[in-house]
């Protein structure tokens, strides 16, 4: 967009130069070039041109908002407002991640899914809402491409895998830093896409249970890679960075 505007300004300046040259020399060729450059220059300056990637990203953001609106509605229906837990689940051939949100008095210290069952999951006396997190398809794709594999929980290995997924493949931020203290993992994203910041204000229940888009993706990836339960503890959004704090249970 900026590049095209710059070309437009350049052509318009070139047009003015040709016009001055025509006034000095009265050679008709200069006037002709002046007109042609002006036509194209003014077109590039005036017409707003949105690059496909930008338009696509905007559309994708709206779809994510719709996803959160749906989850918000669902959680309201169940009257659920608790923190969700990201838990790995085994299928016959592959592995995936689900998010379990406690309905009433459910404790999730030792909760685990043996297989993917319906919307409501009952484990002893505890009842959970069983949802597909926002990083579900990403994990499946990354698994097929061999980007993520099971590994031991360490600061560097988690940072490496999150950098591959969030920076190299998704490009949702420019860099990722992780800090692991005990079972608490802090992930800092530099230059995240700010369009997703509004989610927490618009859908407080859904973001409290699942976390924001970033938290959901990170929690899903971490849960998948370390084969353990993960909970989003806290999130902070700043102008040039976002901080996601997770707890590995």
């Amino acid at each position, binding site marked *: 967009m900026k590049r095209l505007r710059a070309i437009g300004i350049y052509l318009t300046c070139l047009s003015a130069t040709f016009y001055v040259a025509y006034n000095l020399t009265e050679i*008709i*060729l200069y*006037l*002709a070039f002046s007109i*042609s450059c002006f036509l194209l220059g003014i*077109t*590039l300056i005036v*017409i707003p041109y949105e690059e496909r990637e930008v338009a696509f990203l905007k559309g994708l953001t709206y779809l994510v908002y719709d996803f959160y609106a749906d989850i918000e509605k669902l959680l309201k229906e169940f009257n659920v407002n608790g923190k969700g837990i990201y838990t790995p689940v085994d299928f016959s051939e592959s592995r995936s991640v689900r998010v379990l949100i406690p309905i009433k008095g459910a404790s999730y210290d030792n909760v685990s899914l043996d297989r993917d069952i319906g919307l409501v999951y009952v484990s002893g006396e505890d009842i959970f809402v069983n949802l597909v997190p926002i990083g579900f398809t990403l994990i499946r794709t990354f698994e097929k491409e061999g980007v993520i594999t099971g590994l031991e929980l360490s600061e560097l290995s988690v940072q490496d895998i999150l950098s591959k997924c969030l920076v190299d493949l998704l490009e949702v931020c420019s860099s990722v830093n992780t800090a692991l203290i005990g079972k608490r993992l802090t992930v800092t994203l530099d230059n995240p896409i700010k369009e997703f910041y509004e989610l927490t204000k618009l859908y407080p229940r859904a973001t409290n249970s699942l976390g924001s888009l970033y938290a959901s993706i990170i929690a899903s990836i971490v849960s998948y890679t370390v084969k353990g339960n993960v909970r989003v503890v806290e999130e902070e959004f700043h102008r040039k960075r976002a901080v996601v704090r997770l707890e590995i249970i």
Partner: protein
Amino acid sequence: MNKVTIYVMLTLTLFCITTTMLYYVGERRIDVYFSLYLLIYMITTEIVLPVKRKYRKYVNVIIGVLFAIFLVIVARRVMEILGWKI
């Protein structure tokens, strides 16, 4: 190469070819150059330039202004042929 780049390259190339050929055949009337530029501009803009529907009005304004200039040129030429003085 995206569509806008193709549009800029194509339009500039056609403008250059037209200018060179007209100058080569000895054409010195600027209204002839302008008319051909307008023709090329309208064709390439309609066919190649990827303008979204909501921005279409901007293109229409530019084409409208250029077409008005073209009508003035034609009117002047007709008046010249008919021997009317402006």
